[in-house]
């Protein structure tokens, strides 16, 4: 799951590919992952501040004005066997949210889907409200 999400994170920076992601309803799978992780996590899991991927060099601004955040595999932190499931779950949740963020910034359709705008432009926003509550 983690590798697949990393692939999707790279791909989701391209507008044409985001359109393909929409066509294949990738957001449904991402929301599935997020809600499954939310369900699996306990309060004490959230206090574990360990990550598989870490940001390097701070946020930069690209030539087209886009914010660029460079990530690398965290090789400076040991993760125990008991911690690995929790760390992977949090990481998968984090990646799924980043991909949705990319999709929403490149596509109005993705934004509409995430915010669940119905036909008369009323926002139900269930996904967003559940995430906010969590």
């Amino acid at each position: 799951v983690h590798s697949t999400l990393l692939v999707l994170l790279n791909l989701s920076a391209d507008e044409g590919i985001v359109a393909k992601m929409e066509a294949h309803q990738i957001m449904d799978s991402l929301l599935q992952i997020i809600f499954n992780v939310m369900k699996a996590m306990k309060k004490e899991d959230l206090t574990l501040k360990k990550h598989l991927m870490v940001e390097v060099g701070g946020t930069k601004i690209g030539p087209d004005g886009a914010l660029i955040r460079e990530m690398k595999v965290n090789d400076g932190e040991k993760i125990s066997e008991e911690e690995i499931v929790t760390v992977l779950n949090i990481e998968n949740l984090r990646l799924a949210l980043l991909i949705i963020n990319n999709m929403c910034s490149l596509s109005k359709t993705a934004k509409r889907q995430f915010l669940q705008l119905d036909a008369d432009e009323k926002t139900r926003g269930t996904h967003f409200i559940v995430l906010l509550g969590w």
Partner: protein
Amino acid sequence: VKFAQIGENILEMEDMMTELLGYLRHEKLEVRKQAISAIFQYSDNPEVLEFVKKSDMMKAIKACLYDLVSFSSWGLVPRGQSPKDISDLSRT
């Protein structure tokens, strides 16, 4: 052997991605996992982005993601249980 060839850049990018797309649809989950890891190494390459746009790769990635989420042992979904509809969780 194929993955080793890919690592040594013997294959052209499009041929390589076509090969990987085949592995992404392999019946064994372990092979699909390795294929997706290999694709990640090239996923910011402009040629790969073009390949994804014109091929069925996104469909294969979606199928792969669905299987991995469904049968994952990482606590996402218990073994043998289908993923629940997210609306169940939205109501809680």
